């Protein structure tokens, strides 16, 4: 069940990433490219959960010791979002 839910989350993220990719192509606003990458990374994050976390236990110590690198993908996704926000505001100021 947990793998299934992570799969649903990954799929939803991929769909969102595709929408943002389309918005970027149409509007040429870099913010959408960043968000597309961020949601694609979130999809990878959830995929990583499904692949790496042992099915019978998602307790903290098992989670963190068996697959500590998963959170780096999550970090990447949100750093990209922060970069998107900063970039957008710098674009606006430069106008």
């Amino acid at each position, binding site marked *: 069940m947990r793998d299934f839910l992570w799969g649903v989350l990954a799929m939803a993220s991929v769909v969102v990433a595709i929408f943002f990719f389309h*918005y970027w192509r*149409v509007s040429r606003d870099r913010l*959408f490219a960043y968000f597309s990458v961020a949601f694609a990374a979130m999809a990878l994050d959830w995929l990583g959960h499904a692949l790496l976390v042992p099915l019978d236990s998602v307790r903290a110590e098992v989670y963190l010791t068996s697959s500590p690198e998963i959170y780096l993908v999550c970090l990447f996704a949100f750093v990209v979002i922060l970069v*998107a*926000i900063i970039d957008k*505001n710098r674009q606006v100021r430069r106008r």
Partner: protein
Amino acid sequence: MSRTHPPAARGGLQPHNESDAGYTSEPLPDEVRALLRERIESYEALEILIALERVRGIGKTAGELSAGLHVTPALVDRAVRNLEAAGLVERRSAVQPQYFYAPPSAELDCAVRALARAYAEQPIPVIKLMSENAIQRMRTGAARAFADAFILRRGKGDG
């Protein structure tokens, strides 16, 4: 080729006296297309920008613009706010607020002059491009609202 009457006085889709009637073989330059796409949202904004560029250094009040271009004051207000947000026009308050042509860079100034020239010589491609941009803006309205939400400092006083 010099025009003896300013673009603003033509006021609308009147055909040229010249034989080519706006269909030339030259495409609009890239900086003009970018300017129209990114900073000019209405025909009123275009006419006001061109009118102010022509008298650069002299300010016009909303009333003068409205009378000179035969545009209602409400549309003038909306258009100058568009141009102010685009960074092309500056408002200085004297007794009455006056609007000045104030491009932030030499490149934008060149682009505006090229646009004024293009609109005088071949208005139909300019108008066609503006219509296409307007349709595109409508289609991407939600996306633009999303992107604009992330601008931290909102000058419009909303909410």
